[in-house]
């Protein structure tokens, strides 16, 4: 509240009020003084003429009967009028008849009466009053009055004037000190609020409205402005927030697509190295077989040729299998798999698969099936076959010779449960979590051919059947995969997934 600007507003107001009231007071006093002066002049003249008339009337007899002693006596009555300093009477011929002077002062009387009437002469008022009796003029009364009374009155008037001026000024100062607050206070309050707002940047503050005048309106307008600023701030904030959110989203999307691209690149390079290995092995076998057939010549035994041809067939099958895996994955990833449900018995189905895999078994290996009664399913046979072929061929592949493989199937509460258990090399504990990843191969199988796609494909197939897959494995002791899916598919036939 004490900044020099604030003080100046109050001072300005005070100055203006004092100036205006001072000017008004001064002008009023001057006007009154002038008025008073003229009033007093005329009053003085009137007073003197009244006295003159009385004296003249009283003097009639004295003049009529030529009694100047009496006349003097009458004039002496003027003693009561201290301002009348000299008076005299002239007879009708204009000769001095009697005279009067106040105190010891000596005043020359005009030799002859002058024109009737009263007038100011230097610092005196003089008057000639005719003395008339009936229709006759008996003589003239002369009077001379000083203006001491007038000056005395002017003196009093001056004192009053100065007191009024000072009093009025003081009153104006006092009142303006109080009244200007009604103007300056809301302005200062407003200024204070503005200062605080700009300091704290808090637009939720509001200036207090005092009256219903223009300052009140200003305060209201200011508050409305603040409300608008606040609203706009909120809008800007929410807009900023939205923008930030968008930026984050976009960044995430970008990161996502970048990651996807990176993943794709990684997969590509993994595919290249996998393909180079996995394709070369059967191709090497095929080429070596062909080279041998070439060297056998025409006279060689058919048995040897037949053996080489079998090898070529097997290698080509192997290559076809790898290609099928790629195709399955490609199909599933693009959602191109069609589900074709049909009714079949899980027992028979399992046995067929075991029969099919017999050629793959290593020496001394066997697959033992155990099911429970009739197990009629309504499911996609092809998908389920793919799943079991994958799991069982893995079991054969990663088991040593003479190891038993178990296939257990059961149905309870409309839920089919199939377990494939081997006594193979197992999966190292640290790598189990990655088992279903694409192109993933555990470190302990790097010498065994494989694409790293099998389990990934199995998982996706099981999901198509609305089922789940999990496994338990101990390194060098064996692995057990458990697949669970509904006995009857919820899908009708031929529903594109």
């Amino acid at each position, binding site marked *: 509240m004490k900044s020099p600007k604030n003080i100046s507003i109050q001072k300005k107001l005070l100055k203006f009020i004092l100036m205006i009231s001072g000017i008004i007071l001064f002008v009023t006093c001057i006007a009154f003084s002038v008025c008073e002066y003229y009033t007093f002049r005329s009053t003085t003249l009137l007073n003197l003429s009244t006295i003159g008339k009385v004296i003249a009337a009283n003097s009639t007899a004295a003049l009529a009967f030529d009694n100047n002693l009496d006349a003097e006596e009458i004039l002496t009555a003027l003693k009561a009028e201290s301002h009348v300093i000299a008076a005299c009477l002239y007879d009708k011929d204009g000769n001095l008849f009697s005279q009067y002077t106040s105190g010891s002062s000596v005043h020359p009387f005009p030799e002859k009466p002058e024109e009737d009437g009263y007038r100011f002469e230097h610092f005196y008022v003089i008057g000639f009053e005719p003395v008339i009796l009936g229709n006759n003029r008996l003589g003239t009364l002369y009077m001379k009055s000083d203006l001491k009374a007038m000056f005395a009155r002017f003196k009093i008037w001056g004192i009053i004037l100065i007191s009024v001026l000072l009093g009025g000024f003081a009153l104006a100062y006092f009142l303006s000190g109080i009244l200007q607050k009604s103007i300056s206070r809301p302005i200062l309050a407003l200024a204070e609020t503005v200062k605080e707002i700009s300091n704290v940047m808090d637009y939720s503050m509001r200036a207090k409205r005092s009256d219903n005048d223009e300052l009140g309106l200003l305060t209201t307008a200011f508050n409305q402005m603040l409300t608008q600023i606040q609203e706009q701030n909120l809008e800007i904030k929410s807009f900023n927030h939205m923008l930030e959110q968008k930026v984050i989203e976009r960044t995430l999307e970008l990161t996502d697509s970048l990651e996807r691209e990176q993943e794709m690149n990684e997969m590509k390079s993994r595919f290249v190295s996998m393909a180079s290995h996995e394709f070369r092995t059967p191709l*090497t*076998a095929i080429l070596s077989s062909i080279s041998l057939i070439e*060297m056998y010549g025409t006279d060689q035994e058919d048995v040897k040729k037949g053996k080489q041809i079998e090898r070529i067939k097997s290698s080509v099958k192997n290559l076809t299998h790898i290609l099928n895996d790629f195709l399955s994955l490609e199909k599933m990833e693009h959602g191109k798999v069609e589900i074709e449900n049909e009714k079949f018995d899980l027992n028979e189905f399992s046995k067929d698969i075991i029969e099919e895999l017999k050629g793959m078994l290593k020496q001394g290996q066997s697959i033992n099936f155990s099911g429970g009664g009739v197990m009629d399913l309504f499911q996609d046979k092809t998908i389920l076959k793919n799943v079991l072929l994958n799991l069982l061929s893995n079991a054969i592949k990663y088991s040593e010779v003479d190891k038993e493989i178990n296939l257990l199937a059961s149905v309870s509460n409309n839920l089919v449960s199939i377990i494939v258990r081997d006594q193979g090399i197992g999966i190292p504990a640290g790598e189990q979590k990655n088992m279903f990843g694409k192109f993933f191969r555990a470190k302990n199988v790097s*010498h*065994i051919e494989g694409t790293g796609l099998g389990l990934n494909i199995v998982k996706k197939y099981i999901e198509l059947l609305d089922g789940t897959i999990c496994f338990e494995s101990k390194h060098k002791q064996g692995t057990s995969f458990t697949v669970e899916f509904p006995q009857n598919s919820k899908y009708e036939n031929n529903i594109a997934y």
Partner: protein
Amino acid sequence: MKTILLIEDNLSIRENTCELLELEGYKVICASNGKTGLQLAKKELPDIILSDVAMPMMNGHELFAALKKDSSTRDIPFVLLTSSVEKKEIQAALEKGVNGFIGKPFEKDVLFQKISFLLLENNS
């Protein structure tokens, strides 16, 4: 008659390559993994060793390192049959002293030429 030690885990490739080399007039000893290969190499002291890279028990690189440690097998020419196309891998192996590479799948003539060249080089 020169003796060749062939170490290859894939049965078809092992048997076929063995037969091809025998038809070419070499005596061939076969092993299905690196460990057996190392034992045979020390025992038979072949004139040349052909080895696959990716094998169970002991892979080709490990086998080569083991052969280099033994004075009896140190100077036997060593050829890797590899399906790898990684130049870095080949470069590293050559620097370690591997005598040759034969990329899978291979033509029989390439195989024969490489072997006869290395045998000649070793004799001289």
